[in-house]
C-alpha cells in the first residue's frame, strides 16, 4: 500500500501546485518539494521492506473485464522495483529542490512543478505496476510529461521541435510496445508481468511467440531509451530545462526501457533472435553515442549522447543475460548522470550558455560545482573508486565471462570489444568536457559578468549526488539488495578497462595540452564535422519518414479537394443541370406537351408489344 502512496502523493502535490500555484508564490514549490519528499520517504519505507532477500509484495489485483483476457490492475514490489523506486524518488526530490532555485521567477514554475510531480508519479507507477497495461499508462504518461517539459521554453523554436520529435518518436515505439503486450498477454494468458514471467520461465510460451512479443516490446524499449534507430530524439530534447534533463532524460524515464527489459528478462531470454538484435543495437548505439559525445559542442548534447551511450551499456549487459550488471549500471548511471546534468545546469545558469567553447576556467569561480562535477565525470569515465568504475566493471565482467565461457559467445564478444572501445571514448569525451569547462582561459565572448557559484538550493543536491556517486561503489560490489548472488570482482577486465580509461584520458589531455587549451576533438580531423553533424542520420531519418508522409498528405488533400469534393459537388451540379433541363423542356408549348404524351404512349406500347 505504501507503494501506492508513492504514486498518489506526487499527484496530489501536482494538483495543489496547479490549483494554488498561481495565487501564492510559495504554494507550488512547497507542494512540489513536500509531495516528492513524502514520496521519497515512502519509497524509503518500501525499500527498507523489500530490499535484500525479502519476498515480493503484491497489491491487487483489481480485475477489469475487456471481453477477453481481463486487465488486472495490481502493484508488485520486489527488490528491483524497490531500488528503482528509490532511485526515481531520490532524483526527483533533488530535482524539485534544485528547480526551486533554478526556475526562480519563472511564471511557468507552477505548471512545471506539477508536471515534474506527475512525472514522478508516472515513473513510480511504471516501476511498481504488475499489469502491462497499467505499466503502459505510466510509461506514456511519462512521455507526455517529458513532451510538455521539453517544450517548457515554448517560445524557442528548438524546444518546440524537440518536444514534438521526442513525443512522436517515442510513441512510434510505444505502438510496438502495445502490440508486444498483446502478443505477450495472448501467449501467457494474462497481462500480469508476474504471470508472463512465470509462463516464460516454466516454458508456457513458445519460441515464435516469444520472439514476436519481445521484438515488438523492444520497439517500445528502444524508443523510450533512445537506442538506435530511435535515438535521435534524446539529444534534441536538450532545450528543456536542465533539471528535467537530469531527471527524465538521464536518470529515470530513459532508463525505464532498461527496467522493463530487466523485468521481462526471462521472456526475452527465450528468444535468441531478440537478444542478438538487442546486442547489435546496443553495440551500435554505445559506439555511436560515444563518438557523438566526443564531437558535440554543446555541453548538454555531450551529456545526452553520453546518456545514449551509457544506456546502450545497460542493454549490452542485459543482452548477454547480465541482469544484475545491467540493473547496477542503471542505478549508478542514474546517480552520476543526474549529478552531471544538475552540475551542468549550475554551470549554464552561471554562464548563460550551453556551448562548451564559451566556458572555461570556471574552476575557481564555481568550486562546489567544479568538485561535484569532477566526481561525476570520474564516475562516467569509470575511474575508481567512483561508482561508475564498479558498475562498468560488472558489465564488462559479465561480458568477459560470457565471451570465454558462455554459450552466446558471438554476442558476448561483440559486447566486450565494443564496450572496451567505448571505455576509451568515454574517458576521452569526459576528460575533454571537464577540461574545456573548468580549465584554460575564460572565453571573452561570454555575455555574463563574472560567473559565481549557485545558491545552496542548487549545490545541495549536487553534493548529495556526488556523495552517492562516490560511495555507491560499495553497494555495487555487494548487490545483495537486488536479491542476486554477490558478484565476484573481475580483476582481468578491470585491468583492461582501467587501461582503456587511461588511453582515453591521455588522448584528451595530451591534445588539450598540444592545442593550448583548445578543443581536443579537433584531433579527429575530417571526422569531426561529420560527427558534429551527427553523421546526417537525423536529417536522413526525417526525410525518409517525413517525405512519404508529406506525399501521402498531399494525396489526401488532393483527393479531398479534387476527387471527393467534386463528386459531392457534382451531384448537386448534376441535379441543378437536370433541373434546368427539365424546366427548359417544360417551356409552355402545348404541342410539345401533347407530343410528349403521344410519343410516350407509342414508346411504351412499342416496348410492351415487342416484349410480348
Amino acid at each position, binding site marked *: 500500500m505504501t507503494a501506492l502512496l508513492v504514486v498518489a502523493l506526487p499527484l496530489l502535490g501536482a494538483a495543489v501546485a496547479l490549483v494554488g500555484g498561481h495565487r501564492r508564490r510559495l504554494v507550488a514549490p512547497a507542494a512540489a518539494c513536500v509531495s516528492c519528499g513524502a514520496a521519497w520517504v515512502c519509497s524509503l519505507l518500501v525499500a527498507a521492506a523489500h530490499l535484500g532477500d525479502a519476498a515480493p509484495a503484491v497489491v491487487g489485483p483489481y480485475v477489469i473485464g475487456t471481453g477477453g483476457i481481463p486487465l488486472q490492475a495490481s502493484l508488485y514490489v520486489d527488490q528491483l522495483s524497490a531500488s528503482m523506486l528509490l532511485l526515481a524518488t531520490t532524483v526527483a526530490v533533488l530535482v524539485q529542490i534544485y528547480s526551486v532555485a533554478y526556475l526562480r521567477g519563472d511564471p511557468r514554475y507552477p505548471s512545471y512543478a506539477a508536471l515534474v510531480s506527475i512525472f514522478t508519479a508516472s515513473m513510480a507507477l511504471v516501476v511498481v505496476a504488475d499489469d502491462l497495461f497499467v505499466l503502459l499508462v505510466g510509461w506514456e504518461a511519462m512521455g507526455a510529461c517529458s513532451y510538455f517539459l521539453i517544450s517548457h521554453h515554448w517560445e524557442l523554436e528548438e524546444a518546440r521541435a524537440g518536444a514534438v520529435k521526442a513525443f512522436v518518436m517515442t510513441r512510434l515505439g510505444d505502438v510496438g510496445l502495445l502490440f508486444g503486450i498483446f502478443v505477450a498477454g495472448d501467449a501467457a494468458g494474462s497481462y500480469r508481468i508476474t504471470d508472463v514471467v512465470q509462463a516464460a520461465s516454466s516454458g508456457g510460451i513458445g519460441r515464435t511467440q516469444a520472439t514476436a512479443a519481445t521484438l515488438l516490446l523492444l520497439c517500445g524499449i528502444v524508443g523510450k531509451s533512445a537506442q538506435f534507430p530511435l535515438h535521435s530524439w534524446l539529444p534534441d530534447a536538450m532545450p528543456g530545462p536542465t533539471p528535467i534533463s537530469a531527471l527524465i532524460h538521464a536518470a529515470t524515464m530513459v532508463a525505464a526501457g532498461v527496467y522493463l527489459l530487466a523485468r521481462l528478462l526471462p521472456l526475452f531470454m527465450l528468444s535468441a533472435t531478440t537478444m542478438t538484435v538487442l546486442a547489435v543495437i546496443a553495440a551500435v548505439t554505445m559506439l555511436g553515442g560515444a563518438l557523438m559525445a566526443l564531437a558535440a559542442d554543446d555541453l548538454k548534447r555531450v551529456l545526452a549522447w553520453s546518456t545514449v551511450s551509457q544506456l546502450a551499456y545497460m542493454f549490452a549487459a542485459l543482452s548477454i543475460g547480465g541482469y544484475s550488471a545491467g540493473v547496477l549500471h542503471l542505478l549508478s548511471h542514474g546517480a552520476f548522470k543526474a549529478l552531471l546534468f544538475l552540475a551542468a545546469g549550475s554551470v549554464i545558469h552561471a554562464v548563460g550558455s550551453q556551448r562548451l567553447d564559451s566556458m572555461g576556467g570556471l574552476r575557481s569561480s564555481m568550486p562546489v560545482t567544479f568538485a561535484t562535477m569532477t566526481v561525476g565525470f570520474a564516475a562516467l569515465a569509470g575511474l575508481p573508486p567512483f561508482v561508475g568504475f564498479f558498475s562498468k566493471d560488472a558489465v564488462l565482467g559479465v561480458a568477459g565471462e560470457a565471451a570465454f565461457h558462455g554459450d552466446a559467445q558471438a554476442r558476448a564478444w561483440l559486447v566486450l570489444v565494443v564496450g572496451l572501445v567505448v571505455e576509451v571514448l568515454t574517458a576521452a569525451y569526459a576528460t575533454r568536457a571537464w577540461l574545456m569547462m573548468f580549465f584554460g582561459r575564460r572565453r571573452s565572448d561570454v555575455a555574463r559578468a563574472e560567473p559565481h557559484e549557485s545558491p545552496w538550493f542548487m549545490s545541495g543536491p549536487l553534493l548529495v549526488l556526488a556523495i552517492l556517486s562516490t560511495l555507491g561503489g560499495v553497494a555495487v560490489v555487494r548487490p545483495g539488495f537486488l536479491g542476486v548472488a554477490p558478484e565476484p570482482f573481475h580483476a582481468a577486465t578491470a585491468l583492461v578497462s582501467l587501461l582503456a580509461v587511461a588511453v582515453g584520458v591521455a588522448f584528451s589531455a595530451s591534445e588539450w595540452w598540444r592545442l593550448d587549451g583548445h578543443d581536443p576533438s579537433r584531433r579527429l580531423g575530417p571526422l569531426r564535422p561529420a560527427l558534429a553533424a551527427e553523421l546526417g542520420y537525423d536529417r536522413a531519418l526525417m526525410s525518409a519518414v517525413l517525405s512519404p508522409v508529406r506525399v501521402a498528405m498531399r494525396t489526401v488533400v488532393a483527393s479531398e479537394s479534387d476527387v471527393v469534393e467534386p463528386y459531392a459537388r457534382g451531384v448537386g451540379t448534376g*441535379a441543378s443541370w437536370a*433541373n434546368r433541363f427539365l424546366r427548359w423542356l417544360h417551356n409552355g408549348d402545348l404541342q410539345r*406537351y401533347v407530343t410528349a*404524351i403521344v410519343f*410516350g404512349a407509342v414508346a*411504351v*406500347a412499342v416496348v*410492351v*408489344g415487342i416484349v*410480348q
Partner: protein
Amino acid sequence: MTQAVDWWAIAAPVCLVAAAVLALLLDAFVPKQSGALPCAVTLAGVAAALAVTAALRDSERAAFCLPSRLEEPVDCSWVVDRVALVWWVVALVACGLVALLLVPAVSEGEMPGGETYFLLLCSTAGALAVAAAHDLVTLVVAMETVSLPSFALVGLRRRPRRGAEAALKFFVTSVVATAITLLGISMVYGATGSVAAGAVATSVATSSAVRPLIGVGMVLTLVGLGFKVAAVPFQAWVPDTYVGAPVPVAAYLSVVSKTAGLAGVTIVVVRFFPPYADVWSPMLGVAAAVTMTVGNLAALLQRHAVRVLAWSSVAHVGFLLVPLAAGGGAADVGALQTYAAMYALVNLGAFSVVAAVSARGATLVSDYAGLVRREPLLGLALAFALLCLAGLPPGIVGLVAKVVIFRSAVDGGVTWLAVVMAANVALGLVYYLRFVATLVAPGPEGAISSPGDDHLHGLVPASVGFVISATLIGSVALSVWPAPLFAVLA
C-alpha cells in the same frame, strides 16, 4: 331486360349530383349571395355522401350487373367494396375541404358561386364513379365526368388570361390522353370481345394468341389514367395548369382528381389484367422511378411556390405507383391508399396555406419568408405539411406512410425501386427544407403581410382558416398517433 337499380350503392354520387343541381338552382334563384350558401349545400351533399359511405362500410355491393354469357361469374358495372369506399372517403373529405377553400374566391366574385360548386360536385361524383366502376365503358365515362368540369373550373376566373391558357392546355392534353385511352379500350375490346372486368380478366388469362394486342391495349388504356395522376411522361400539363388555375382548384386537381386516377389505375391493373402483372408491374415500376425523380429534380430549384407544390405532387405520384409496381396485392393497395390519404391530407394543408397567402399576391417562395414569425398558424401549418410531404419527423405521418410504401416495395421484391426511393426522399428534402427554412427565416422588412400592414395581416378567411387548422390538427394528431390512418391496412 332492364337492369335493376341499386340506389343504395349509388347513393353517394347521387347525393353529390343532387347537391350540385341544388347549388346551381339556388344560384339562379337566390340573388346576391356570398359563397357561403352554395358551400353549405356542397358540404351538406358531401356530408350526406360520407354518411352513405359510412353506412356501406361493412357490405360489399355490386350493382348494374350485365347479363352473363354462359356460366361465367356475373359482371357488374358498379362494385362498392372496401377499396372503393376508402377512395370515396378520401375524395369526399378532400372535396369538402376544397369547397371551403373556394369560399373566399366566390365571395369576392372572383368565381361564380353556383356554377363553381356545381362543377366541383359533378367532378367529385365522377371521382366516386371511377372508384366503383368495373367496366371500361363506365370507367371512361366516369373519367370524363371528373375531367370536363375541372377544365371549366381551371378557366373560371374573373380575369381569365392565365386561367384560359391553363384551361386550354389542360383541356387539349387531357382530351388527347382520353382519346388514346379510348383507343386502348377499343383494342382490349377487340382482343377480348368484352369490356367488363371479369370477362376481360378471364379472357386475358386464357387467350395467349393476342398477347401483344392486349398488352398494347392495356398500356394505352392506362395512358389516360396516367395523365390524370400525372405520371411521367404525361405530367407536362401539371405545372402550367396548377399555376394558372385558382389555387383551390389546383388543390382539387392535385388531390381529388389524382385520387380518381389512382383508383382507376388500381382497378385497371388489378381487376382487368391480373395475368399481365409481368407487364404492368415493371412498367409501373419504371414509371414510378422516373416520375419521382423527374418531379423532384424539376422542383429542386423552383422559386414559384405553386410550381414547387405542382412538381412535388408529380414526385409523390412516383411514390404512389410503387405499391402497384410491387404487385398490387391487397396489402399493396392498402399501402397505396394509406399513402394517398396521407398525401391528400397534408397536400391540402399545404395548398390551403398557399391559397391564403397567394390571395395577398405572394407567388414566389421568397415571399413566404418569415411567415412562421408573423403568422405562426399559417407558417407552422405550411411547415408541418411540407415536412410531412418530405417524410421527416416531426412530420411522422409522412414518414410512416413512406415506411409503408417502402415495405410494399421490399415485400414485393422490387428492392431496386426502394433504393431509387431512398435517393428521391433525400432529393425531395432539399426543396422542402429550403421552403421550410424560408418560412422560418426572419422575413425582409416590408414583405407581404408585414404585421403593421393591417390591410393584409390576419386576413385569413374563416373557411380557409378552418381548413388550415383542420389539416394541421389532423396531420399532427396522426403524427402522434398514426394508427387510424393505417387501419386501412389491417
